[in-house]
């Protein structure tokens, strides 16, 4: 099992209160959601606003176009009918009935009237009793009596009459314009039928795209011209009469959902009523075609909207991912610092406590030591005592001395750990310094079958540090390494130094091939009083002191270990110790005591 811990303070990071990856994926989702809301809401609002405005605007434009078309066209049709009526009036008021009754005369007039176009199909003179006196045209209508027809009655009543489409004697759809002339007690009528096809083409002459059509229908909703698509002349117009309740209007006619054939798609319809005859002109076009440009623009806008949506989504995902990554990194950093702070705080409070305890213990120890001496002195001054008793007593007293010294050592260590000791900064040549330490312990190492291997960076600069504390650090680590080799016949302790240009300091690695440290011990190894050594052999302060010394000198220490394979301590030391350590130095050592 391989385990790496940066420092004792670094452990349990993923199991922290943030709940690991889950927390960040939740944060991620929340951020994505929020950024999407924040960017999509205005996008949709603007898009919707523009859509509404543009649709309304273009609809208004189209409607006004239709309206002007229908008005304009009505004008044309009315003008045509008026002109034809006045043609007839001109003839009837300038010619006598006797003249007109003569067929060649009537033909000449008919030909002149049709010179500009085939407006009229036929032309006839009818007397006041409804008899056809003269007739020019394709049908055999001579001698027909019209006295019973509706138009005859109307023209006799009104003087001028334009009829609706009707079949009549010729049995073909047509409409007539009739003009009455009264001269004294003589009355006669000039009647002409308008060419149905010509009239149709006139009405139809509004080109409204592929689906547009124009037609006329009368008050009863009977078609007066044959529309392009919907229906035939003289049939019932397809649009509901209720739609045309105003004098003129425009509207959207929705698809009749009840119509099983769905004959009529959604249409835009404009209509207007003619004055005389009371016909209505209808212009209509499929909605989809009329609004094609608008719909096209809307579709384009929709595509843009979707594109922006996609872009926003991508940006939001990417930026959120980046943000969450940054936050995660910050959190981890904060966590690490927090843990370090906790560890530092723990060590500091323990340091305070230890210092107090050490102080308090010092006094009783001093008393015990002096008390011991008092006993020794008293025994020596008493000659009557048995020699063997004296010897035994002195042995015991020596033991008391030895144990007091042991306690003393512990309190010294405690105080050292609690940083109450003073740094003595001096220039250190680290390589030489480490060589010295190795020499110091080499004798003991040989006895245990342990070899030293040193891999030192050449030309490592000398730097300011506390040699006595550093000595303690490395002696502690090496002693631990020795202990880790307990029960192994041989082993290696390798020490290496590397220059770290980036952090301006040196990295030192102390690695052993010992028994390694278990993960649960690794968590506690820098805690004071934690030891795996048997009672009396270790105080559990070594690594705590090491840790606090390295931290105090502005460095850091981390450990990697694998059970059965060994442990590696990585130490970093800066070339410049922290300012407070240097300040301390100024206070105490730069001005040496004058009386010393």
């Amino acid at each position, binding site marked *: 099992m391989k385990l790496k811990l940066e420092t004792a303070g670094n452990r349990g990071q993923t199991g922290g209160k943030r709940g690991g990856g889950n927390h960040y994926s939740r944060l991620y989702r929340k951020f994505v959601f929020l950024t999407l809301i924040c960017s999509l809401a205005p996008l949709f609002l603007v898009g919707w606003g523009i859509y509404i405005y543009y649709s309304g605007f273009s609809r208004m434009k189209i409607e006004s176009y239709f309206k002007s078309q229908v008005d304009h066209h009505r004008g044309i049709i009315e003008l045509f009918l008026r002109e034809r009526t006045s043609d007839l009036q001109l003839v009837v008021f300038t010619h006598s009935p006797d003249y007109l009754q003569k067929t060649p005369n009537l033909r000449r007039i008919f030909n002149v009237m049709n010179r500009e176009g085939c407006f009229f199909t036929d032309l006839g003179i009818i007397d006041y009793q409804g008899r056809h006196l003269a007739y020019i045209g394709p049908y055999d209508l001579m001698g027909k009596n019209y006295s019973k027809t509706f138009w005859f009655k109307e023209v006799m009543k009104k003087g001028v009459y334009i009829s609706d489409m009707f079949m009549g004697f010729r049995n073909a759809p047509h409409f007539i314009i009739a003009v009455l002339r009264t001269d004294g007690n003589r009355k006669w009528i000039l009647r002409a039928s308008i060419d149905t096809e010509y009239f149709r083409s006139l009405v139809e002459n509004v080109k409204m795209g592929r689906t547009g059509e124009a037609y006329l229908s009368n008050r009863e909703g009977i078609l007066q011209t044959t529309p392009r698509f919907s229906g035939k002349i003289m049939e019932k117009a397809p649009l509901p009469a209720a739609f045309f309740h105003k004098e003129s209007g425009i509207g959207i006619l929705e698809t009749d959902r009840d119509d099983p054939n769905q004959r009529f798609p959604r249409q835009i319809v404009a209509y207007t009523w003619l004055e005389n005859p009371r016909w209505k002109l209808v212009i209509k076009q499929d909605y989809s075609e009329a609004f094609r440009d608008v719909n096209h623009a809307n579709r384009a806008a929709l595509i843009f909207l979707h594109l922006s949506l996609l872009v926003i989504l991508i940006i939001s995902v990417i930026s959120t991912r980046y943000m969450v990554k940054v936050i995660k990194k910050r959190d981890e950093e904060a966590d690490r610092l927090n843990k370090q702070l906790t560890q530092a705080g723990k060590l500091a409070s323990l340091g305070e406590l230890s210092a107090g305890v050490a102080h308090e213990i010092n*006094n009783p120890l001093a008393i015990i030591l002096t008390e011991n001496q008092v006993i020794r002195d008293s025994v020596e001054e008493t000659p009557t005592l048995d020699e063997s008793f004296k010897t035994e007593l002195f042995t015991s007293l020596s033991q008391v001395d030895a144990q007091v010294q042991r306690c003393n050592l512990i*309190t010294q260590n405690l*105080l050292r750990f609690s940083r109450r000791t003073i740094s003595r900064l001096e220039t250190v040549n680290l390589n030489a310094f480490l060589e010295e330490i190795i020499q110091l312990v080499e004798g003991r190492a040989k006895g245990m079958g342990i070899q030293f291997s040193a891999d030192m960076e050449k030309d490592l600069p000398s730097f300011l540090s506390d040699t006595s504390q550093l000595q303690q650090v490395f002696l502690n680590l090496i002693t631990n390494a020795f202990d880790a080799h307990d029960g192994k016949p041989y082993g290696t302790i390798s020490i290496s130094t590397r220059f770290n240009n980036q952090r301006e300091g040196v990295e030192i690695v102390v690695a052993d091939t010992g028994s390694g440290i278990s993960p649960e011990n690794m968590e506690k190894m820098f805690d004071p009083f934690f030891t795996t050594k048997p009672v009396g052999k270790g105080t559990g302060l070594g690594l705590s002191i090491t840790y606090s010394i390295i931290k105090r000198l502005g460095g850091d220490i981390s450990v990697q270990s694998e059970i059965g394979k060994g442990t590696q301590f990585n130490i970093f030391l800066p070339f410049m110790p922290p300012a407070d350590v240097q300040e301390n130095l100024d206070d105490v050592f730069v001005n040496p005591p004058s009386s010393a």
Partner: protein
Amino acid sequence: MKIPRILLVDDEVAFANNILKLLSKRGYDVTAVNDGASAIRTLGEKEFDVVILDMKMPGMDGIATLKEIKKKEPLAEVVILTGHGSVESGIEGMQLGAFDFVMKPVSIDDLHEKVCQAYQRRLIEEERIKQQESGR
């Protein structure tokens, strides 16, 4: 030969008593007091060669007492007793004119040696002053 006069100042009564006994046996004239104020008072009543002064005392602490002693009796050599954690106070004491400091718990032999050295210096100082006075 003159018996060296020692003033022992320590708030720990048992410790003071033991040192009193042990140093007396080693041929010193020892007076023990338990606080700084008594030390100053006693110093006014009687002359001492060496003062053994504990740094950590309730009331008037070692440093204050030391300053007072040096004011009253500049010739008296002061040996400071200090804990491991208060090396600073020992050094401070030396800056204020103490002879040296020893760390508690101290063996009687070490203390004896320091007191001896302090007494020797006191004698040398006295000699120098005498010579200066006679030379004038």
